[in-house]
């Protein structure tokens, strides 16, 4: 500890130093370190956004890059298409996963590890591999889907539903854990309700919060997704950005910021929904 420059008088200096150390460091320095870490992070995360903003504002005359946000019909068409696809994805995902998670918890607890494993598979099969497999499987007979626009749209939705599995299943399952589905189901059935009524009138409303956070995460992922959208060649927001990034530099900066704002809005809604609860927003579909 004591370097060659400091003189050792008694041989106890290292000990004295190690005793003095904790009191010397606390309490101010960890907080200072935290602020430094925070400021460096803000720089790293802020600069690219600032850079994009500055670039988008360089277009002449001032604000020109943002003009197409009100004038470019294609942008609205593609953005609208992305949102429609995202909403259908969310609905299909809910329709598929809520009854499944409910049924597994109620009747088939032994199947749970298998279902959970399947919903985690999209983490193992990256989007590029999934789209590769989907295109290989569904571009020829007997299951030709890519021949028509409707078929391609269906394939796009199915791919996104698969990508939403990990997030949706986890939020739904977490939601089911905190409500007593067994008692609720028994109560409904003793009042004469069928399975559909149980799910639609009782389970679903109770899962509202859990489903909403998964839904908005899925929405953000689908609207900002690139790999599947581009390889299935659908007119998504991503395809639009790809196109204008090659021809209109300033405009692409403006659209990139817009995409960030959309994700931000979705996450804002999630944290509003999950306020007061320990909500984990974990994603990572690139």
């Amino acid at each position, binding site marked *: 500890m004591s370097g060659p420059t400091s003189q050792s008088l008694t041989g106890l200096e290292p000990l004295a130093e190690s005793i003095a150390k904790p009191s010397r460091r606390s309490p101010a320095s960890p907080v200072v370190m935290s602020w430094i870490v925070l400021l460096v992070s803000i720089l790293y995360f802020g600069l690219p956004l600032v850079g994009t903003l500055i670039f988008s504002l360089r277009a002449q005359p001032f604000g020109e890059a943002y003009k197409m946000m009100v004038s470019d019909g294609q942008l609205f068409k593609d953005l609208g298409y992305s949102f429609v696809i995202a909403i259908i994805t969310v609905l299909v995902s809910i329709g598929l996963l809520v009854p499944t998670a409910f049924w597994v918890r109620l009747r088939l607890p032994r199947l749970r590890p298998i279902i959970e494993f399947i919903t985690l598979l999209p983490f193992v099969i990256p*989007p590029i*591999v999934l789209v590769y497999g989907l295109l*290989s499987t569904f571009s020829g007979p007997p299951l030709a889907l890519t021949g028509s626009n409707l078929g391609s749209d269906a394939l796009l939705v199915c791919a996104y539903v698969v990508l939403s599995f990990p997030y949706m299943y986890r939020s739904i399952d977490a939601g089911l854990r905190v409500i007593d589905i067994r008692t609720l189901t028994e109560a409904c059935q003793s009042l004469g309700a069928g399975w559909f009524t149980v799910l639609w009138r009782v389970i679903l409303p109770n899962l509202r919060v859990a489903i909403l956070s998964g839904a908005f995460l899925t929405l953000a992922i689908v609207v*900002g997704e690139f790999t599947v959208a581009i390889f299935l060649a659908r007119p998504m927001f991503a395809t639009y950005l790809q196109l204008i990034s090659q021809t209109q530099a300033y405009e692409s900066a403006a659209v990139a910021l817009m995409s960030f704002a959309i994700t931000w809005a979705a996450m804002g809604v999630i944290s509003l929904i999950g306020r007061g609860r320990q909500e984990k927003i*974990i994603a990572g579909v690139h």
Partner: protein
Amino acid sequence: MTQTAQIGDARTAPQPGRRRFSGTVLGVAPFLLFAVLFLVLPTAYLFVGSLQTSTGQLTLDNFAHLTQPYTIAAYEASLEISLVTAILGGLFGFLLAYATIAGGLPKPIRGAIMTFSGVASNFAGGPLALAFIFTIGRAGFLTVFLRAIGLDPYGAGFTIYSKIGLEIVYLYFQLPLMVLIIAPAIDGLKKEWREASENLGASNVQYWRRVALPILLPSLLGSVILLFGNAFGAQATAFFLTGGFIPLVTILIGSQLSGDALGDKNLGYALAIGMVAIMGVTLVAYSYLTRLAERWQR
């Protein structure tokens, strides 16, 4: 279990044995059918294709052909970039998470950092690549600024269209992902542990080396592995940034998809399956490590 059995029985007469069980399984049939059609079947198609020659005979040659220089280079580049960004993202992400949760910063900052991490971990593909090009690209505002004060990064050999450039960009979603997944583990560090070790005379360094790090280690390793998988599977960001200039595995699969880059369909399938195998190993390691970590989070 007995309770489970009673619910249906209230309405439908109990049916013994097999038939009743298969009826119950029908409840998850739509999900299973969907998963088989759009997840299992496509993967199986790639898998079977990877074991076939172009004429349909069974072979292992496709995997042997993965040892060609350019496929090896692709795997190496993917592994290197994933490893570097997983470790750096893990390190800086942990520092940021620890600073915001336990570092004595004002409370509201935590909520802001967590929400922002949710946004940034999803910010990938085109917009992310563009944002960095506008910032540290050849004409980016930071590059211009640095050049003006006499520090020209491009003069020093740096370029954003390189592995290092790509790593800097990847950290933008890797670091926040780390913040999100490590936060519960940091929350789980109990104050009592620090107090107990201080009472026993431990220094700050000793507390970290003997108490905090061993407890956090499985979570840290698990998170870094998840980050690795996250970067390994990424395609769009690299595609937008370099247009295929850096031949990652995902980029190679992409160009195989849009043309026949490898000149051999079945080799492309083998490339994809090799990728799934690596991702599978990372997920198994991750789930093992999180199970270890959960011991401390009760």
